[in-house]
């Protein structure tokens, strides 16, 4: 065995692939990708959670597939190949959910199909998997999927709590008795613009805590 070529599975470099997208290189708040789906499915927490998991699955598996095939994919049709891989995986996820997690698939309905249009996935295939080995690509997929998912969950938590007064459909506000003091749910939180504003607040908080994210003029 050649020690030079063997890199530990979780080397510092690989770990960085995993943790980078969670913070400093977050696909939503730093690269501002995948915003469209972040607006659509963050009204309630549960669909957001399932969407996050589905995206993590699709992005990491498609990264592995593309990374393993990267030497055989003709450059001229690479985008088509990437799309075919993503679309296939998304349809498979959809079919499996319908067969084995019917309740969840009902909740997500059309949004599963929308994973295909998620720019983060194609971005990672094009930028990372086409030039790296399967294992780092897998980790990169996990990291970016999780980075996307964590923002989704944060946004959905606030929108569901403030907009519908529930957390995972548990009537939290009602139990604290806030309604009797005149508190009302903010219907605006349910509408898509508020998702954008919540994402904006997250970006603001993140940038004010990490000055290195602020671009030099």
């Amino acid at each position: 065995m050649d020690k030079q070529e063997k890199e530990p599975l979780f080397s510092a470099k690989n770990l960085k692939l995993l943790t980078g997208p969670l913070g400093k290189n977050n696909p939503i708040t730093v690269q501002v990708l995948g915003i469209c789906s972040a607006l659509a499915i963050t009204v309630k927490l549960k669909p957001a959670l399932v969407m996050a998991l589905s995206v993590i699955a699709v992005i990491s598996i498609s990264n592995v597939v593309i990374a393993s095939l990267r030497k055989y994919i003709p450059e001229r049709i690479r985008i088509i190949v990437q799309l075919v891989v993503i679309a296939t995986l998304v349809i498979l996820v959809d079919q499996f959910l319908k067969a084995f997690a019917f309740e969840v698939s009902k909740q997500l309905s059309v949004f599963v199909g929308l994973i295909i249009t998620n720019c983060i996935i194609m971005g990672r295939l094009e930028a990372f998997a086409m030039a790296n080995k399967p294992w780092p690509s897998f980790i990169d997929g996990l990291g970016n999927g999780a980075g996307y998912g964590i923002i989704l969950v944060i946004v959905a938590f606030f929108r569901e709590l403030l907009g519908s007064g529930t957390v995972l459909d548990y009537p939290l506000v009602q139990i604290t008795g806030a309604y009797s003091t005149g508190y009302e749910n903010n219907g605006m939180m349910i509408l898509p613009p508020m998702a954008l504003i919540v994402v904006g607040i997250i970006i603001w908080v993140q940038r004010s805590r990490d000055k290195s994210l602020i671009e030099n003029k």
Partner: protein
Amino acid sequence: MKHFSNRYIFVFSSVMVIAVATLLSLAATLLRPAQEKNLEIEKKRSMLESIRITATRSNAVDLYSRYIKEGFVTDIHGNTIDGVDAFGVVLKNEQRKPAGEQYLPVFTASSEDGKDVIILPVEGKGLWGPIWGYVSLESDLNTIFGVTFDHKGETPGLGAEINTSDFEGMFRGKKLFDNGDFVSVMVHKGGAEDGDVHGVDAISGGTITSNGLQNMLRDCLEKYNAYLIKNRN
């Protein structure tokens, strides 16, 4: 990056397409029985819910055979049509036929406290896609005993609220007929007045879904008019 010949690109894409097509059709074929089973359980669960019986996925089939007595199909004139499986009737396909040829399924059932009720399926359009549900009527064939609604992809938190028990609960005790004339149940923006037996509150922010639901109830239940009048004592 290596340069690939045109021939290679053609072969590569053909192989890819065939491989993907095989994989997907295999998955669709293998998973279909499980998916159809899910749909059947779901349908039975919704029908039970419309007569106020909460079923889980595991006991829906048992409860269905206990509470739902029989299903039959009637036509727009209220005549029973023999030899059609009411459970298998797909309402969406029926609605494409001319009114006189449509199969209208009716299910008789008994509620948990032993009352005789009938269950009528309804299907219509929401904002983003189909909405459907079941309406159960008490033995006077006028008073709503319970309803259940569902949807394919209405907006969560807005139109999707039609399948919450808060919304469905408002339909209990509402009446379809006023002095023998069919008037259905309307949704009212800003809330129905107290004591209005033909109205419920619309969903704020879900106006198009609410209106779609109102049209669905009127269009679907109106077809049962003859049947309901004929069988009313």
